[in-house]
């Protein structure tokens, strides 16, 4: 069944489009997880956007989008973070994030946290925000470099991207353009058990859900699981490591940038 997102991302036509002759000016919000845990995702996102013809800035003011506070009930803390982020990013043509869950926070949830003039600003701001694969495909019509004899990968749809933003076809189309075959999971629309702080509050449930996702991914026969959200990927990678499962985990930005054969940077540093 096709997912029925509550509100799909505006189609590119609905959003303001700079004249084609000038490069699109994009603010890259790398997300805190990529910043801290896997800089290669942020670097690959930056390069992909540049290759797609954008002028990219990484605003130095960026921290966390406020999801931990929001999802743990600290709405006032989350609202202050939302205001700070909107202030730092609202002057760019586009704001692009390599995460469906953080993009969903900015697009869907910031308006729920704010009132009055801030609410209007949040709505205007939401119109400029894109998840990375959506932006690369729907706005830039980007054709990533074709990869020769790429091994098949399994794809994990993260829930927020899938249901809040309707991201399903974009990563698959980009992977197809890059010549990377995708094996579909049997239960692609079921959560992997990460859920932000859920995984720390309810580790037994989270672990069981991760096991089911890993089993499903393993059953595809692909050795690598690709996703658009680093949170899910790190949680699955950590579970697979705990259970000595050999699967590789990569963010789609890394894969499209041609890093499919290199293991995550931490391990390469250690070797």
């Amino acid at each position: 069944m096709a997912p029925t997102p509550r509100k799909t991302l505006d189609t590119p036509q609905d959003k303001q489009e700079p004249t084609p002759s000038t490069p699109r000016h994009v603010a890259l919000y790398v997300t805190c997880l990529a910043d801290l845990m896997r800089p290669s995702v942020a670097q690959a996102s930056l390069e992909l956007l540049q290759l797609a013809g954008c002028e990219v800035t990484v605003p130095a003011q960026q921290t966390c989008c406020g999801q931990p506070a929001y999802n743990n009930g600290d709405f006032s803390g989350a609202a202050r973070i939302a205001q700070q982020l909107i202030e730092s990013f609202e002057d760019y043509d586009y704001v692009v994030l390599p995460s469906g869950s953080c993009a969903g926070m900015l697009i869907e949830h910031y308006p729920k946290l704010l009132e009055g003039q801030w609410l209007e600003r949040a709505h205007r701001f939401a119109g400029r925000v894109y998840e990375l694969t959506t932006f690369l495909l729907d706005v830039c019509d980007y054709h990533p470099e074709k990869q020769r004899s790429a091994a098949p990968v399994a794809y994990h749809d993260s829930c927020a991207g899938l249901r809040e933003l309707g991201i399903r076809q974009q990563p698959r189309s980009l992977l197809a353009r890059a010549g990377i075959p995708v094996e579909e999971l049997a239960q692609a629309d079921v959560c992997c058990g990460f859920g932000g702080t859920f995984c720390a509050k309810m580790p037994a449930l989270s672990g069981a859900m991760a096991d089911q996702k890993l089993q499903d991914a393993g059953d595809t026969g692909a050795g690598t699981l690709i996703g658009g959200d680093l949170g899910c990927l790190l949680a699955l990678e950590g579970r697979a490591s705990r259970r000595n499962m050999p699967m590789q985990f990569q963010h789609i930005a890394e894969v499209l940038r041609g890093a499919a054969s290199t293991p995550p940077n931490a391990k390469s540093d250690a070797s």
Partner: protein
Amino acid sequence: MQQHSRDFLQAASTAIGDPESAGTRKALGLLMPKLREQAIETFGGSDDFSALRAEVKAIRQHALGHLAHYLESFTSAARENGSAVHFARNGNELNDIVLDICARHEAHRIAKGKSMITEETGLNAALEAAGFAVRETDLGEYIIQEANETPSHIVGPALHKSQADIRELFLDRHDLGERDLADATEMVAEARQVLREEFLAADVGIIGSNALIAENGYSMLVTNEGNGDLCANLPPVLIVCTSVDRVLPRATDAMAMLRLLVRSTTGQAVSCYTSFYAGPRRPGDVDGPVETHFVLLDNHRSEILASDYAEMLQCIRCGACLNHCPVYMNAGGHAYGWVYPGPMGSVLTPLLTSLEDSAHLPDACTACGRCEEVCPASIPLPDLLRDLRRDKFEQRVTARRWRWGMQIHAWLALHPRLYQRVTNLAVAVMHRVGRRHGVIRRLPFAGGWLEARDLPTPAAKTFQAMHQESLGK
């Protein structure tokens, strides 16, 4: 019903560790979404379903927005039909009203159809304490009554029992001599034989309701076994126990809801029995009860209606959110510790009991949104669960280490320069700790994460530090 929601984490862990019940739930989690999807595609298609969903949402919101008016209409119409209508503010009042009716009729035996409302009020225990013999007649409810257990699912109360469990239970509880009970058909036949006696002997029948219809004072009931109809029509006294939020304006509204309900519940186009109870037997009727009572429970529902959680009252009790929730499928229904499990239960339980006693339940959600996607009543369940977490945070029900941790994190996020210094330091430490193995297995403040999984080791520096270096800053 006694509440055990405080033990959610432990009970969920136990359920995960039991391979047999985990297997049953896994099968259910695969089957139920498929049945629902097939039913929607087969009977009208998803566009038709979406249109129905919008229609029913509007009906429910209208009915709830004018609840007092429609309850008055229902009451006067039902009284005109010869039924008695009673209102109960809480569970004890409902139980007392029912006990009073049973005592007045000098009843001994009571046959019950499935009713989550009477689970909520603990009616069976109250009736038994007063000396009445109560028999549940819905097959699932019968099984758990015999096993002295509680429902694990709002539609299929005995879904946690395997066929082998039930066979053993029947052999033990039914004094019917040597027999095989080789398959489900034989077990169902045996239950039917045992229960037939109960219907015939009952002095009072008690059933639930899927909808009360304001314009004609009727009650609608949907079943697949027909047991509700036997409870309603064979004993001389019928008592319908339900809650005030079940009322709908018109019979056509009930029809619209019915089409959504059955598809969402079991993946059928229509259930085997859909009945409308119009009141006591009229002159010339060949059957039906001599006396009909409606007992309508409030139990905090008026408060919910006036609160930020009013949308929860749109629930039509189909169970689709349970069937699509990966947390429910792993934890099992009993872990939730009260009457209503799964996403709808995690919202309702704190509202109907207390936030303190149910504090884990709003957290038992990854915000994956699958429940909201399938909910026929368009209830934003993940949002309501997050709102309950806001209440927890503001009322300091959230554990102190989480509240303080979140506040420190938010404060840091609001000070970007300091944030970057702190994260650079943290990353450098994590990199050193984990670089030998590629993963981290021990780290302060990461106990929850590390309980079930390793933490992949980060690179030596944050992206922002590297990026600023590359820009020559």
